[in-house]
């Protein structure tokens, strides 16, 4: 099955919007940069943070699942995003979801750990540039000041009229990931491009 998958043309939720995102990036002169990061591996992990599985899964992934609410932990190509006191989203490079899922399952042994491939549930928008915060502030009620929403912070919140997972990447210049439900991605793209009108 896996060998045939490569021959199937894949379409990400925003593949048809790539041109518009690139055009906005270009005309803004880099003030805002918008792009979809399609097909990232995303695995939802539910486990007891105080149980034995937390450490075992951390070891298997090579990163500690963040226990501090609304923070991410990054190691190598993997990012673990805190979603709740017993819930994380592990994000990795394209195609890695099977491997991630099986490593986590193997590490959790008999502990009641839930692992779900959600790679297609949300797509990822990368928003960078000096006006990235200003752009998000048009629709996100969170305080995004760099002193408050620092690098390594994340939040499940709302942007415009849709829910998102917002991640502040490692350094201020690296901007934000906006993870949005695939069915809302078109709406959010239209909204972002409209909100970006003043910066382009």
């Amino acid at each position, binding site marked *: 099955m896996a060998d045939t998958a490569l021959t199937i*043309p894949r379409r990400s939720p925003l593949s048809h919007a790539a041109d518009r995102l690139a055009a906005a990036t270009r005309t803004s002169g880099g003030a805002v940069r918008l792009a979809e990061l399609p097909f990232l591996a995303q695995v939802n992990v539910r486990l007891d943070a105080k149980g034995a599985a937390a450490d075992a899964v951390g070891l298997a992934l090579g990163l500690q699942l963040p226990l501090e*609410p609304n923070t991410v932990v990054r190691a190598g190509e993997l990012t673990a995003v805190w979603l709740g006191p017993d819930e994380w989203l592990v994000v990795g490079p394209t195609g890695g979801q099977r491997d991630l899922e099986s490593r986590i399952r193997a590490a959790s042994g008999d502990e009641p750990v839930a692992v*779900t491939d959600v*790679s297609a*549930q949300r797509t990822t928008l990368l928003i960078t540039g000096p006006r990235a915060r200003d752009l998000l502030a*048009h629709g996100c009620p969170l305080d995004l000041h760099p002193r408050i929403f620092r690098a390594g912070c994340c939040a499940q919140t709302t942007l415009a009229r849709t829910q998102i997972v917002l991640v502040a990447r490692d350094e201020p210049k690296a901007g934000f990931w906006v993870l949005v*439900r695939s069915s*809302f991605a078109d709406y959010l793209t239209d909204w972002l491009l409209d909100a970006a009108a003043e910066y382009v």
Partner: protein
Amino acid sequence: MLLIPCPWCGPRDEAEFHYGGQAHVPYPEDSAALTDEEWARYLFFRDNPKGPFAERWSHAAGCRRWFNAVRDTATNEILSVYRSGEPRPDNSTRPGLWAGVLQGGSGGHNPPTAPQSSTDPAGSGTAAPVSGRGGLGEETTPVATQPFRLPTGGRVHRGERLRFTFDGTEYEGFRGDTLASALLANGVIEAGTSIKLGRPRGIFSAGVEEPNAVIQIEAPFPEPMLPATTVELYDGLVASSLPGQGRLATEPDPARYDAVHAHCDLLVVGAGPAGLAAAAAAARSGARVILADDRPELGGSLLGSGELLDWAEEIGALLEVAPEVSVLRRTTVFGHYDDNHLLAVERRTSHLGAEAPEHVSRERVWRIRARRVVLATGAHERSLAFADNDRPGVMLAASARAYVNRHGVLPGRRAVVFTTNDSAYAAALDLAAAGVDVAAIVDTRPEPGEWARRARESGIEVLSGHAVVGTEGDPRLTAVTAAPYGESAGTREFAADLLLVSGGWNPVAHLFSQAGGKLRYDDTLGSFVPGTCRQAVEVAGSANGVLDLARVLAQGAAAGARAIEAEGYASEAPRLPEVTAEPHSPAMRVFLVPGPAGAPRFVDLQRDVTVDDLTRATGAGLRSVEHTKRYTTAGTANDQGKTSGVLAGGVVAELLGVDVSALGTTTFRPPYTPVSFATLAGRDRGALHDPIRTTALHDWHVMHGALFENVGQWKRPWYYPQDGEDMETAVLRECAAARDGVAFMDASTLGKIDVQGPDAAVFLDRLYTNMMSTLKVGMIRYGVMCHLDGMIFDDGTVIRLAQDRFLVTTTTGNAAAVLDWMEEWLQTEWPGLRVHCTSVTEQWATVALVGPRSREVLGTLAPALAVDNDSFPFMAWRDTTVAGVEARVCRISFSGELAYEINVSPWEALALWEALYEAGAPFGITPYGTETMHVLRAEKGYPIIGQDTDGTVTPHDLGMSWAVSKKKPDFIGKRSYARADAVRPDRKHLVGLLPEDPGAFLPEGTQLVADSVLPAPPVPMLGHVTSSYRSAALGRTFALALVKGGRDRIGERLYAPVGDRLVPVTVASPVLYDPEGARRDG
């Protein structure tokens, strides 16, 4: 917008949360042991206290955790939050987030400042050059077209001439003018007629409080009812006066509107002396400060008085370079809500006229969350109720002063001043210095004091102990009559084209009051001033009832310093300017001025409310200002009674013979000034008004001509008309393809939830009415979910993926609600269950492949799958490859036909869909939409939750007793089926209806009655039609209906009133097509 502190994520906007009702009401351990009354008490009864109340909340748009909060139901304050399962804390105090909440500013907190000696000419009595007090350089331009414009002085740019049109006449003004000041410069003071009486009215003020000069902008974009006193002049402006009411534009507004969220340690509202001092004290501390002011220039009242403008400029420059300070000009803070959430509107491009750039929003709503707020909103001058006080030429004294000092405009040539207090004297002196002939100052006070001496020294006559008792003019004022206060004899008449009025000052306490602040009456001011407030708000300056400039500055600086120190920053004493100590004589409290009978004394100019109107109100027995307001409409116009509210209260108090302090004020509600709907809507209009959710196959549907139906936020293909087909023809064709050949549909919108854990089966047994734990891995079961009252809430299929893992599907519209429901029970009632639920709705795209030829199509594309009925039976699922795409194929049918649901990754859904389209072509494969789906399922009597049910329908009512387990000890809703109400014989059952005329169509919602003749009302109703279609398979119309005792009526004839006809129908089984189920296996 409340700020609710999630125990995990910290404070977030209320909009991220769901309310879950009273906390600590556990599900009974043994519900079967409860009496009906006890069960009803658990089900329906909740406490409703005033004060602290423990309730459940879910951080629905965040970490999805349920938690408990103690909320004060009287104030909405969240007193404490704690995690689910934890006991309610004993002392319900505000958490640290709100520690140290400030009391509202009080007038007594004024560090003494030593007044410095000064050479300020304002008080010296000599005619000082106007340009020395706030003029913009030495631009001297002859202004032949603006006869009332001074050659120098003011904040206008005489080099920038702007042409504008008012009531069809072209005029010229300058950059820096308002429409009102430009009109006055051209000698135009009349700016409209009143709404009820049609009396001519003139420019009355110089700010947002304007009741008269409310005009219509005609070009470049039409906008109704803007105060001319707040409209910045631009080239090409076309405006007209109004008869008290505007006209909405008939063309769409092409401008953009937007919103932005902002956060700060300190928000200072108002950039007058107090606000500038407050912001200056905080500017360099590192605290995040926002200073908002509704004018284009900082300075507030200083712009009108012409004082301290160098200092204002210096502070402006300081704020400009401070890295964490934002100054918002042209920004009106119009609402002050819970937890220091304030809304402001910034006018960004209106003043640019036709040059406004298209890509910049015209107006912007700022949604500001401030840790601390300093309100330095100033004060509005109050008018007096004297005879004929509404002629054009009657103007508030400080406003006339502002036209001279801010705009270099004389509002008239010869003025009389009518006052009860000191402040009008400065206006009189400034006007005199600018060249106005001040005929007299009429002061109600018998001993007006030092200011009167100064006026007399300047050659102005002061009539102490006098009042204005009448005016003349047609329409503009030509004469003013004064008499000793309270007497009609001894009158004197003055020729004048301007009458300046000052009845005292009203602090602008609107925002403070909206924030929950309590006002108190200040006797020396004769008005209401801020008292205490539970929010972190201070009021400074004249908004706090302080009118002395030195004290205003000191109070502002102190308030700014206190606010940021409370947030942990070090304040800095700002440089405050030297201010001359001015003499002060107490004001006299006057509202009502006696006058000749028959002459109207206006209280509310914009609503044409007079003293006589208020007298009728009190005569009718009304005793509260809230009631007199509603009886007379005083204070309800779009100026919201800014100049008239306290005056009306004062008049009513006099009429009732009580003290004005006992009456209080009417309630202040947002917005402080009118805000257009377009601005409030911002970006949320047109296509962005509500999110549109689409599936991975959406583009294909669009390309193939689908029309769409909104299902929740989803766009679902409704039907695919071909070659000009109407809906009926297209749906009959699609139905026929599904019944006779093969058809396919995008079913990706169904909600999908992955349920994992060792206790997953136990959990689902408790949630669904039927048994899920006995389902075998590899198989599928249909299930029904009910609320505690036993009424159906959702339905769908449950797939057992593994011993400890299920995939649950929900209806399209209910996916989020079902997941919330699951989490609520898991987190609050059954935390011991080892189960986790994860939404995977968009992880899978689903294609329904339906029809007798569907097996052949699937077989072609899934060579590894044994598709024969024995190998792949009904309600089984298989993992395989379809058209090279990894797929999970389920044998589910929502049509009664042989059918499959093929689930694949949405990334590959288009490849699958196109492969099916190609492989099915020889069989005439037909894409179908929701309408065909509805017909097919209705022919089989399958209900749609939310269409055939309405929250009052049990599974038994639908004829689904088979889906209600009798073996399970308990499940949600079970106890309710034993209630008397659930076993009534006349409950409404789902039945089929066949109109006797097979072509007659019953609209959904049609009522059903027993007799062929309608009896006299009330007509007993037996039920109503829930679904109604034309069926290709049955060759006739049919309907589903909820009918009282319906299953016992099968075969009976009922009547359906449609229009004025009673259509005879026969009650039938809901399963009208293939009742023996022969088609399911192909």
